[in-house]
């Protein structure tokens, strides 16, 4: 079976879904799809290149903040320049962070990426720049408009849904292309043995920096979509909780697989939604971090290769 068949069927199903969805569920699907884009962007770093970053939310947050701040009070901005601006700003910060953090390795890399993310967090949290700790609202959602013809208005639920779906499909397709390309194979080699790659003639720093910047830009895309969906941003978007959550998503789904990243985003968001639901869990909902944490520990203990490893495990068990 060709590897793209399952993703293509999934995308077609998602495209048909709004016909049968309630507004709440459609909103949830949009949220999950945005987090799937975010998780995919980190998968390029962790899964493909073996770079474990604990500061990936900085790029999500910068993309989101730029979307809101560049819109300003002058009415709806054109998505044609707002989206590139959001992704570009995230990419710029990724160049800066990557250029410095990629000189370190392993646990030092984790700490340095975390430190740069905290730095960005406190810039938005402690200064008036983005409304301080309360954040700011996005009053006018981006549009694409030629003359009087409005091609896209992200204030409309359907437009937002299909834009998010297109972003997810585009991100997935881009990463699938990267993974099969020479660039992707070089990243895989760097993940397994960077020293050997240098001995073969690869200037590995440039490859890692390129991956870091692409991942940052894609996280900026997720940030753009999140800001548009929520109509507001606040500093928590850049917090290390968010960086940790996206790392948990790809661990939950299975590191080293694009599908795993998407499945992880679905599972994590649904679990969080479930444990936060007072209607279902009553007073326990207030302690969702505890229940979510315990569930993730159980998942990781039982499925060390993530949910994507479940299939192999089940079919393997059937043979035994």
């Amino acid at each position, binding site marked *: 079976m060709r590897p793209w068949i399952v993703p293509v069927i999934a995308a077609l199903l998602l495209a048909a879904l709004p016909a049968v969805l309630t507004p709440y569920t459609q909103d949830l699907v949009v949220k999950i799809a945005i987090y799937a884009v975010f998780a995919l962007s980190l998968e390029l770093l962790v899964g493909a290149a073996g770079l474990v970053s604990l500061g990936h939310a900085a790029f999500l947050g910068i993309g989101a903040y730029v979307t809101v701040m560049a819109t300003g009070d002058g009415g709806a901005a054109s998505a044609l320049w707002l989206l590139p601006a959001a992704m570009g700003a995230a990419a710029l910060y990724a160049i800066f962070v990557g250029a410095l953090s990629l000189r370190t390795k392993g646990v030092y890399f984790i700490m340095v990426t975390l430190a740069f993310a905290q730095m960005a967090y406190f810039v938005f949290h402690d200064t008036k720049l983005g409304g301080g700790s309360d954040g700011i609202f996005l009053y006018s959602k981006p549009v694409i408009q030629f003359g009087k013809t409005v091609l896209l208005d992200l204030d409309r639920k359907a437009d937002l849904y299909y834009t998010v779906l297109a972003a997810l499909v585009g991100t997935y397709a*881009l990463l699938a*292309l*990267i993974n*099969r*390309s*020479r*660039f*992707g*194979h*070089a990243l*895989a*080699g760097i993940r*397994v*043995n960077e*020293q*050997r*790659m*240098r*001995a*073969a*003639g*690869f*200037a*590995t720093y440039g*490859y890692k920096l*390129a991956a870091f910047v692409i991942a940052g830009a894609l996280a900026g895309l997720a940030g753009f979509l999140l800001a548009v969906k929520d109509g507001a941003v606040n500093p928590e978007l850049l917090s290390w909780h968010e960086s940790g959550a996206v790392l948990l998503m790809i661990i939950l789904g299975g590191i080293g697989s694009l599908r795993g990243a998407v499945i992880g985003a679905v599972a994590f968001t649904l679990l969080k939604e479930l444990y936060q639901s007072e209607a279902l869990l009553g007073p326990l909902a207030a302690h969702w971090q505890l229940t979510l944490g315990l569930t993730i520990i159980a998942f990781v203990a039982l499925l060390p290769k993530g949910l994507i490893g479940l299939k192999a495990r089940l079919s393997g068990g059937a043979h035994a």
Partner: protein
Amino acid sequence: MRDPKTDATEPLLRSNLLTRRFGGLTAVNGVTLGFHVGEVHAVIGTNGAGKSTLINMLSGEMPATSGSIHFDGHDITDWPQPQRARAGLGRSYQRTTIFPEFSVLENCRLCAQAALPRAWAVWESAQHCEASLATAREALERAGLSDDAQRSAGTLSHGGKRQLEIAMCLATKPRVLLLDEPLAGMGAEETERMLALLGALKQNHAVLLVEHDMDAVFRIADRITVMVNGEVIASDAPAAIRANRDVQTAYLGEGH
């Protein structure tokens, strides 16, 4: 036509008073050596004599404390390792450093890819990159691994992994081979095959061979350099080394 013999007098790779200190320890001290195409140049010495440090400095993995390195008319002392590798300095490792989860062919193809342009063309599939595939197949052919091309590299025997290590080095199309104990842990048959390969490779490569198997060294080497405590105590043809009294007392032992 120039006489290849006169060309051979100019070494392709040369170290000049190369020195490396680690704190108070001088691992390599003022080593001046030349490596010629057409020669297997063995560097021998006890553990800690500085052989691996020498290879690490020549390949660019470790900066020299002082001294210089010259390759094909360039002073490459300050070149980073990837640049040296692309210019034609290939190395193998004492500890096997293959990519175990990739196929044998992909191990070589990946190494062959390093020198290719347009690494950023993400729409092109690596597995259909004919240029690197052709180089990889050729390297596997030379190393005698063609039949194992599709196997996962981690499943090869120890000897097979050592052969792959050499094949990966060849896939980068080097002009100098810096080989750190390629025969370590090999059986008799595998050693024979490796020696035959080295004999063939020296025709158009300069080969630096660090090796503990003395029988193999004296059979294959055209020149032997003996290092003791980071210094070169002798560098000569095998017969002269065997007869050298300093070498006998310092390294080969009184029995020789």
